[in-house]
């Protein structure tokens, strides 16, 4: 039953032998912005911290601003927003299916959340229909979510529709949540940007970009043609092995990546992009670290 979760856990623990799980586990706390009266510890001030959190007495003693940290006690809801349209059945940058990368991202973060006692929920869907799994905090819940993430996207599924998913979230949820958006390299167009601005007001957003496959092979004649899931267009053989085109494609991919990064930065959305399953755990660690300093 819980085969997918086992898979995630094994990745999580095997891949991060070096204290990473500890770090992930510890830094997960920084995900949570809520405060309780339970004092935890002090840390140095970072830009963006709230002034009322400064412990003035400690700061006077220390010589530099210190921030009081409280243990979060509120039960939070971590809602994963995952595209399960046919785009996610396509190949990722590392050669794995993008849904497997999405699965590992959702699984790892979801596992930490569940272990932390928070609720996890899932919003998923495609161009035809957007659905959700309501919040709950159990491994069975997580497994159910993973199952959806893993089985829904096929090449025959409906087209991907990220704006649809985001507007669903904007429409349906009234509560403040932590949103983890798992998307592929869909360009963030003005419509999505607008939705993100709207959602950012209400929620805490994390963005995981699953990198798309390299479309220009470095050797001639691919054995199997690459076919676009969106329209069935097979990439013509003659582009493979074309070094100039390959370089141009790589440059375009880099500029797309950096423009997405700067856009998300300007929206104050923490983000990572992962190209393969191996990238996921280190990527999440980086994401949580970044948040720790930012908050």
């Amino acid at each position, binding site marked *: 039953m819980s085969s997918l979760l086992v898979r995630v856990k094994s990745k999580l623990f095997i891949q991060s032998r070096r204290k990473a799980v500890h770090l992930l586990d510890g830094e997960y706390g920084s995900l949570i912005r809520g405060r309780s009266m339970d004092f935890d510890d002090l840390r140095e001030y970072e830009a963006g911290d709230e002034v009322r959190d400064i412990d003035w007495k400690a700061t006077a003693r220390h010589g530099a601003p210190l921030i009081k940290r409280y243990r979060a006690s509120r039960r939070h809801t971590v809602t994963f927003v995952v595209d399960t349209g046919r785009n*996610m059945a396509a*190949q990722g940058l590392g050669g794995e299916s993008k849904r497997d990368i999405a699965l590992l991202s959702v699984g790892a973060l979801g596992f930490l959340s569940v272990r932390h006692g928070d609720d996890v929920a899932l919003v998923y869907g495609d161009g035809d229909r957007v659905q959700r799994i309501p919040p709950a905090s159990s491994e069975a819940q997580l497994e159910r979510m993973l199952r959806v993430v893993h089985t829904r996207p096929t090449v025959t599924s409906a087209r991907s529709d990220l704006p649809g998913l985001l507007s669903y979230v904007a429409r349906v949820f009234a509560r403040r949540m932590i949103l983890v958006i798992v998307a592929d*390299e869909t360009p963030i167009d003005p419509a999505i940007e607008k939705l993100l601005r709207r959602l950012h007001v209400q929620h805490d957003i994390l963005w995981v970009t699953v990198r798309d496959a390299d479309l220009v092979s470095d050797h001639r004649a691919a054995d199997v043609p690459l076919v676009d899931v969106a329209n069935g267009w097979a990439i013509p053989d*003659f582009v493979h092995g074309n070094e100039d085109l390959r370089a141009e*494609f790589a440059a375009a991919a880099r500029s797309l990546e950096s423009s997405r990064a700067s856009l998300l930065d300007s929206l104050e959305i923490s983000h990572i992009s992962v190209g393969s399953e191996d990238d996921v755990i280190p990527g999440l660690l980086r994401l949580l670290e970044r948040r720790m300093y930012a908050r």
Partner: protein
Amino acid sequence: MLAVGGGLILLAVLCGFFLGLLRNRKAGAAEGLAVAHSERLRSLPGFGSAIRRYRLGVGGVLVVGILAVMMASYVAARPSASSTVKPVNTNRDIVLCLDVSGSMTEVDTEVADTFLKLVKGFSGERISLVLFNSSPVQVFPLTDDYHFVTEQLTRVRDSFDGNYDDFDYWVGTSNGRGASLIGDGLAACAMRFDHLDKERSRSVIFATDNEVYGDSIVELKEAAEYAKAQGVKVYGLNPIDNDDDPKSVAFREAVELTGGKYFPLRSTTAVSDIVDTITAEEATSLTGEARVVWADDPNLGILFLSLTGIAFIVLLWRVRL
């Protein structure tokens, strides 16, 4: 024929068209690795130029392929070129008709020597040797066995030189009554020719001093007329020519009657030169009319076929169809 060819071409084009459609339909549900956001590739300007280059390549393959097929059909049609040739006929029959009376051996030796040299260059010519004094003797008949001719001529020449161990040149030449019966000799020589229905050049090289003693069966004039009737030209060589001598005049007239030529031999004239003149004249008279000859001339076609074929394969390889 043209209609059949056109129909075949139309059929091939239609076949290609439908095959392409079929393949295209299959490509609509193409199986392969699923990827997303192919617009990342399609929006690249480099992709557009790659497509254009590819189209250019495919067009080039098509054009070069058609050119190659055209060249192949051109070569297959056996292109030929006409050329005008003046065939040099070598179907000459020459009878050496040598008077072997006492005063003639020197001339005879020269004639034999000359022909020994000429034989080396012969191909197709036939040659015969008749010796006569008071009676004609055929040493060998008309033959193109040049080895044999050389052998016989050598023997006769040696015999003229005074070496009689092997062969006595005069044996059988004195059976008539008299000496130098040139009328009989010429007639006998003129009768050596065979295959009179065939178009060959027939000539007699007739060397004699024209000093007739005794009664010949055939007069010189009669013999000349017979030769003329047979289509035989007689070339006369006279070592003791004298314009005032009626005998010499008669000899000349007889020879010229047949269409041949008369050569007075004087100390300065070499027999070889005369023989060269005769054979050259014979060759000229035999040079046939200019004929138009059609011969296969595929070289240029094959060159272009190879070039277009190689270009086709190289392009095919470059374009990776």
